[in-house]
């Protein structure tokens, strides 16, 4: 899980072009939106795409998306659950 969190942090920085942010600037429980990293709805679309393209996780339900994208740990848990469910 920790390796996945580390990788996800790097993926987020790259996908969102967070030029002045490094992985150590935020932890797994830092809120991604509004406070914390201060991301917005356009970033949310990019993160949904990241989850789908790189990790094969498709989240259709808007409520679930909101829950999964609240922080890096929630994203990692979603990916692990998806892997466990789909082998």
């Amino acid at each position, binding site marked *: 899980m920790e390796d996945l969190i580390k990788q996800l942090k790097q993926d987020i920085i790259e996908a*969102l*072009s*967070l*030029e*002045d942010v490094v992985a150590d600037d935020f932890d797994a429980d830092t809120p991604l939106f509004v406070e914390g990293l*201060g991301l917005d709805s*356009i970033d949310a*679309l*990019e993160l949904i*795409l990241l989850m*789908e*393209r790189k990790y094969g996780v498709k989240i259709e339900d808007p409520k679930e998306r909101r829950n999964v994208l609240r922080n890096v740990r929630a994203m990692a848990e979603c990916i692990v659950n998806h892997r466990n469910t789909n082998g």
Partner: protein
Amino acid sequence: MKAAIIASSVISPQQTYNSDGFPPELIETIADHLVCVEPDYRNLLNPIQLRRMPRILKMGLACSQTCINRADGISPDAIIVGTGLGCLDNLEKFLLEVLISNEHVTSVLPFINSTHNAVAAHVAMLLKNHNYNITYCHRCFSFESALQDALLQMEEKKAKNILVGGIDECTNDFMKLHGYLGYWKDPQSNLKLLSGKSSGTIAGEGSAFFMLSGEAGEGENRVLLDGVHTFFTPQKADTAEILEEIDWLLQKSGSRLDEIDGVMLGVNGDYRFTELYDDLQKNCFSDNTEFLYYKHLCGEYYTSSAFALWLGCVVLRNRHIPDALRLNGKSGHAINNLLIYNHFRNKEHSLILLRYGQF
């Protein structure tokens, strides 16, 4: 109709951003294309917005913002931009993603920022400006069309102060595709663009913004935009035909050919397209006319005449012609009436008339 050019700003392959004068030293690049010297955008633009912006957008916003600052913060009554290819880099990214994803899900940002009017729109959003906002995308007429629209807006009293820009970027794919068509020279020094006889030219890019005003302070000498004229694929494409077009523009602005004491030519080092420029230079103007050129500093791109206009403003305002711009050996007088003539592969021809004097 004429307009005073009260402020300008340019980002180009030379060190032109920080001051509004001719750069003290020129940058020599040995390549088939020139790349802009860009400022540190973090000092100029919101970092959160910055991370989403493609390079061309950053260049456009920084340049327009500087131009407005130099115009003492005037809020323009209209924003008009000319771009031949718009946000090309993002458009290429977006189309590539469509292809790779087999027309399924694509990233959001390259799509949002891939439209031609993204620069003009972002300038307006940054300024919270809800006035007339339009982008012209007419290949090599793009910037000239923006200037013509600005003059018409002023003539119809719809706008007093207008921000006009010309912007284009060079990308790897653009270079590759146009390279197949024989557009470019083998890598060579930009400062020796006109030496030797070979086909092709050096590509370039740039962003230039101008604040035009339909009113200007009395008793003060300014650079005046006195007319813009475009014509497409002239039938004979000989000097007589070009002179007819020049006469048309001069008559419209109430002046004569012998009053033109400076001509800035869009000669680009491609021997296939230099004949007209050579003939004009040798046969059509008075002996005292200064001939200048500019594409060795900015390269060839669809809105390179915006860079020429900026250089023209510098030459007229400073009352001095830098040696690096001279095509002929004249060295005497300062220019008062400057004609900028450019054509793109003998198809799109454009004339821009500038004067130095009172409004």
